[in-house]
């Protein structure tokens, strides 16, 4: 019978059938970060378990590290404690740690694909909901909580209930100004923030095949904002080309063997999904969120709708108001959604000799040390700095405000991250989610603006 990619990966990883739809799944990779990693290892050790397969676990401090230029671990003292705990526990157990300032350091879902840790056909778990990002490599990656993380570390397995399958096809030619971020925001706005709850989503269709790997990572990143723990894209030649030569990708004769296996990963023709959606690319325009949930989104040419009074009062917006022209105070270009080299290039390309508006504070936070170095090698940082953006150190930074950096209360921020929740970027901060190009355009204009008018 024709099988979906999800079914193939799931079935190949079942160690034991636990009944009632539950399976004990083998985990090929586990990622941990500063916020919960040190404690998770400590708890596992305290309970008398070891870390089952430390060579399959990768650790990185990202959430609670300062992004201030020239930072070190002491810049944010609370984060320093977490980092020290991560160093101590990974050192004790032999888990690889990618520490501040060295290649491989970065936001966990940026560094993992970048290092080739994430490979097609594998399973991956991490104590972070945006683990779904990694599904762009053609694997089954999902976020878990602290207790499940302890289980994953202690056994390299996890009991999971099989989700249902959903396919979202994007068909048609990509309109000008539309990015992977706009595709997924549009999908969430249309299908709803709970549409994917209980599902593993496969993104498919000609417009997804046409996306580069970094764009697919952006697409999969917001799966959880649709409720789905898992989002994935079939691996193809682009995936293989992206992975070849990366630090933890298979080498030599094993590379060929791996590719042979990976070619069998995509869904078979005729495979049935429990739910199938079709989105036409022509229907998508550059998106901007107006509320406090990623589903509260509209085209930049749109208006603030009526309905959610609490969200509008928090956001300081009036129903019927035109979105474009709304004054902006902050811009954040970064996060595991949109902080890769191609994102930074897209943002820099909007600048065109202009300067960040006087009243705007605009940050660019590269997703990893490698992204930072590559961007600097091609002079992107100079273009940002000359235009009045701050060029900062890699980490989660203003995506989650866990590192002491916050958007001030009442300030309006256009952000390339994935959550516009109440208080997400700081108490009282008002977040509008958008693509890197839209965010850069807003920084220059000092207001929400249609990027298509700026290029």
């Amino acid at each position, binding site marked *: 019978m024709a099988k979906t990619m999800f079914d193939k990966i799931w079935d190949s990883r079942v160690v034991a059938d636990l009944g009632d739809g539950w399976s004990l799944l083998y985990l090929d990779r586990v990622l941990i970060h500063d916020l919960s990693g040190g404690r998770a290892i400590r708890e596992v050790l305290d309970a008398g378990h070891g870390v089952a397969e430390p060579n399959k676990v990768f650790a990185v401090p990202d959430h609670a590290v300062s992004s201030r230029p020239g930072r070190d671990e002491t810049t944010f003292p609370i984060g320093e404690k977490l980092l020290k705990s991560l160093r101590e526990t990974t050192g004790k157990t032999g888990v690889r740690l990618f520490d501040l300032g060295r290649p491989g350091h970065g936001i966990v879902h940026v560094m993992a694909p970048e290092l080739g840790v994430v490979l097609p056909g594998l399973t991956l778990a991490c104590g972070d909901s945006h683990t779904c990002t990694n599904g762009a490599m053609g694997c089954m990656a999902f976020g878990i909580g602290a207790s499940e993380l302890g289980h994953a570390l202690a056994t390299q397995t996890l*009991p999971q209930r099989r989700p249902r399958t959903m396919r979202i096809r994007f068909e048609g030619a990509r309109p000008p100004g539309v990015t992977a971020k706009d595709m997924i925001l549009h999908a969430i706005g249309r299908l709803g923030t709970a549409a994917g709850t209980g599902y593993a989503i496969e993104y498919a269709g000609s417009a997804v095949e046409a996306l580069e790997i970094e764009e697919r990572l952006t697409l999969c990143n917001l799966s959880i904002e649709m409720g789905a723990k898992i989002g994935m894209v079939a691996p193809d030649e682009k995936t293989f080309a992206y992975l070849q030569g990366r630090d933890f990708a298979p080498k030599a004769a094993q590379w060929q063997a791996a590719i042979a296996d990976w070619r069998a990963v995509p869904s078979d023709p005729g495979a049935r999904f429990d739910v199938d959606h079709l989105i036409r690319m022509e229907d998508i325009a550059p998106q901007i969120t107006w509320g406090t949930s990623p589903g509260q989104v509209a085209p930049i040419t749109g208006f603030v709708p009526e309905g959610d009074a609490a969200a509008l009062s928090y956001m300081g917006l009036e129903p019927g108001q035109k979105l474009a022209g709304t004054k902006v105070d902050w811009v954040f270009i970064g996060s595991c959604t949109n902080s890769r080299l191609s994102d930074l290039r897209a943002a820099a390309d909007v600048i065109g000799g202009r300067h960040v508006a006087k009243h705007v504070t605009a940050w660019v936070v590269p997703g990893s040390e490698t992204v930072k170095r590559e961007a600097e090698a091609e002079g992107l940082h100079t273009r940002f700095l000359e235009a009045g953006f701050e060029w900062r150190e890699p980490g989660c930074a203003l995506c989650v405000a866990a590192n002491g950096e916050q958007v001030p209360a009442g300030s309006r921020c256009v952000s390339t991250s994935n959550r516009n929740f109440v208080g997400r970027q700081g108490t009282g901060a008002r977040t509008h989610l958008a693509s890197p190009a839209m965010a850069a355009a807003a920084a220059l204009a000092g207001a929400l603006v249609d990027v298509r008018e700026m290029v």
Partner: protein
Amino acid sequence: MESFSSITATAVPFLRQNVDTDVIIPIQRLVGTGRTGLGPYAFERLRYLADGSDNPEFPLNQPGYKGSQLLLADENFGCGSSREGAVWALMGMGVRCVIAPSFGDIFFANCFQNGLLPVRLPIAVIRQIAEETEASPGNARTTVDLERRVVITPTGTEIPFEVDTRKREAMLHGLDDIALTKRHAEAIAAWRVGDRAARPWAWDSVA
């Protein structure tokens, strides 16, 4: 994990959609606070006024509702971040059961790891429980019985709910997942040997 068999409590209506885990517990509280001690910060952005006093509008601050073990919620409760601190914070403020039409997947799984029971019921039933509770303030009690898999509304209507057999067992007896999995140690070891032979590239690249 704390075991759970049955509770009887005043159901606190908090019928808002998409209550995310950032709202349940802000990240700043998780940087530096452990599994315990989060109770006072649960819902802090909604629960307190700027001067730190209780916000009278917040349901769990209202007389008769404060300290209740049972929360009524709306669609997609606990969406967003995977932070298990959201569950620890709810339990820290005394909540043992949340009834909602749907939950965020990761939050839902985290609940079962800690002994907080998430129950899925249609919104119409949840509204009915809310109305019955509001109709007789101070007296209305709702029972959630995991043993029998029923919710009993304040007026005595019994409403069955579905719960995973495996999760129900674990919750009733406070079982630990790691211990259960370790019973499969031999199967895991055998699986590893087989996979290593079948797909050496998945192993050697990180050896």
